[in-house]
């Protein structure tokens, strides 16, 4: 397991959280506003206080009694992309921003240069950006720089809080492509908290549904998104692909089967209609 939540209570919440995150899998964390999605991510990287219980992260344990040394150990393995990337910027150039963690981890200067160049290339930005002021970037560019400043130290776990907010279609497509690379080529464990259910549906393996501080539904995306009874009760709409298949089933009594790619769904539709 990459992460284990054991009877974890977030400060101010009523219920205890229990769930596991498998290594090298991508998870979607969904739930309405106030369901503590962001706090769960913050808790994993030691930014939120654990009231009771334990979080195990790749063998290390965080609890209410953890100190800075424990957090430091855990954070080396974790990259956290804030919803608003400018919240995590505090350097004057993109280079300084991306290299910051490496300096903290005492890397040598030549190594730092190499890693920074690799990271900016990986997120799809030109090296020219390294001299820019991070606060003058567009939302899409800022997210890429924020991601580069995480990927540069090669964390095993990547957490993303509402990553598609504010992105235009090009930036959103780039993000999807990059996440696929991180997932398939680099075997990262990824958790994405988002309201963008159609985006989540395209990329994740598993889904955790949070309601009133507890996991009310979890499993493969197929199992979760097929359970429309619970989703409806909470007030979350299923991805459009699933809604369409449901209408076909209801209206025509045809079972198109589960698809997470619109091209596959369209081939199915074509086959049935023809």
């Amino acid at each position, binding site marked *: 397991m990459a992460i284990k939540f054991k009877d974890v209570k977030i400060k101010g919440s009523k219920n205890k959280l229990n769930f596991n995150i498998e290594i090298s899998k991508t998870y979607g964390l969904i739930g*309405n*506003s*106030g369901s503590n999605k962001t706090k769960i991510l913050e808790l994993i990287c030691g930014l939120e206080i654990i009231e009771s219980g334990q979080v195990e992260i790749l063998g290390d344990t965080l609890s209410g009694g953890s100190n800075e040394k424990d957090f430091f150990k855990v954070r080396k393995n974790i990259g956290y992309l804030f919803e608003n990337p400018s919240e995590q910027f505090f350097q004057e150039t993109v280079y300084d921003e991306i290299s910051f963690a490496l300096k903290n981890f005492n890397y040598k200067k030549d190594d730092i240069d190499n890693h920074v160049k690799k990271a900016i290339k990986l997120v799809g930005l030109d090296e020219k950006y390294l001299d820019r002021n991070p606060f003058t970037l*567009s*939302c*899409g560019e800022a997210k890429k720089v924020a991601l580069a400043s995480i990927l540069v130290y090669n964390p095993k776990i990547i957490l993303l809080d509402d990553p598609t*907010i*504010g*992105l*235009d*279609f*090009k*930036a*959103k*497509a780039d993000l999807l492509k990059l996440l696929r690379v991180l997932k398939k080529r680099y075997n990262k464990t990824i958790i994405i908290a988002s*309201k*963008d259910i*159609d985006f989540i549906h395209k990329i994740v393996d598993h889904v955790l549904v949070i309601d009133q501080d507890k996991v009310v539904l979890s499993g493969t995306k197929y199992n979760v998104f097929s359970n429309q009874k619970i989703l409806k009760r909470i*007030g*979350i*709409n299923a991805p*459009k*692909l699933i*809604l*369409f298949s449901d*209408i*076909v089933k209801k*209206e*025509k009594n*045809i079972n198109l089967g589960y698809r997470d790619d*619109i*091209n596959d*769904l*369209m081939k199915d*539709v*074509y086959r*049935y*209609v*023809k």
Partner: protein
Amino acid sequence: MDNLVNIENMKFAYDNNVVFENFKLSLKKGKWYTLCGPNGSGKTTLIKILLGILKPKGIIKFDSKLLVESSTFEIRKDIGVVFSNVNNQFVQETVYDEVAFKMVNMGFDKKVIDERVSQILKYFDMSKIVDENPHKINNSKKQLVAFASAIVSEPKLIVIDEALTKCDDQDKEKVISLLNELVKEGATVINVTNNMEDSIYSDEIIILEKGSIYLMGPLKEVFEDEIKLNRLGIELPFIVLLSHRMKFYELIDDVILDMKSMVDELWQ
């Protein structure tokens, strides 16, 4: 149909960086527009111009009144704006005061304010939280407070800047059906967004690209133009993408915008 906004021969530049040149746009009363386009295409600049924050060259008329320095304040009263980052927007200590704020400033009678504020908060199911601090409620409810504040004074133009995407699904449905009512009564809505799934609720789409109108027209008309849409790399709504493929397979003739009609057409 009457126009609410008429822009002609508009020019605007940030220092040497020209955003609009010879720009022309008309927005009708009683229509819901989706305004989209890549980052840097001029969406935000256009909205800032309509709000009187930026001063371009050219002619801009709002409800037949010329938008100039002296008329900005009057015109602003007729525009309700909802931003995505509501935390910077709230200035009052309670949800009630926040929603009432603009009407109080506009000098409405206390009784009318009370009636309208209570009515809209009831509609959004927030009657129980009127005394709470708007900064301390959850993000979706914050967004509803921002919508209520923008709409309560019954403005002629409602501008939504990426604000629908932050609402929970059920809250979003409430906002959409209220906006639909207001549009029927003659209000104009501009939803600035790159989430094209939300364009389905609008009447017309305006796609900006490098300060020019790349495509504009009723939903179906714009979505039929597959080549131009693909050239810009726009992420199309699911149902439009499905329509394009089904058209390619010659299973349907035109773009269909709702799932039930699509199913009926395919398996007729």
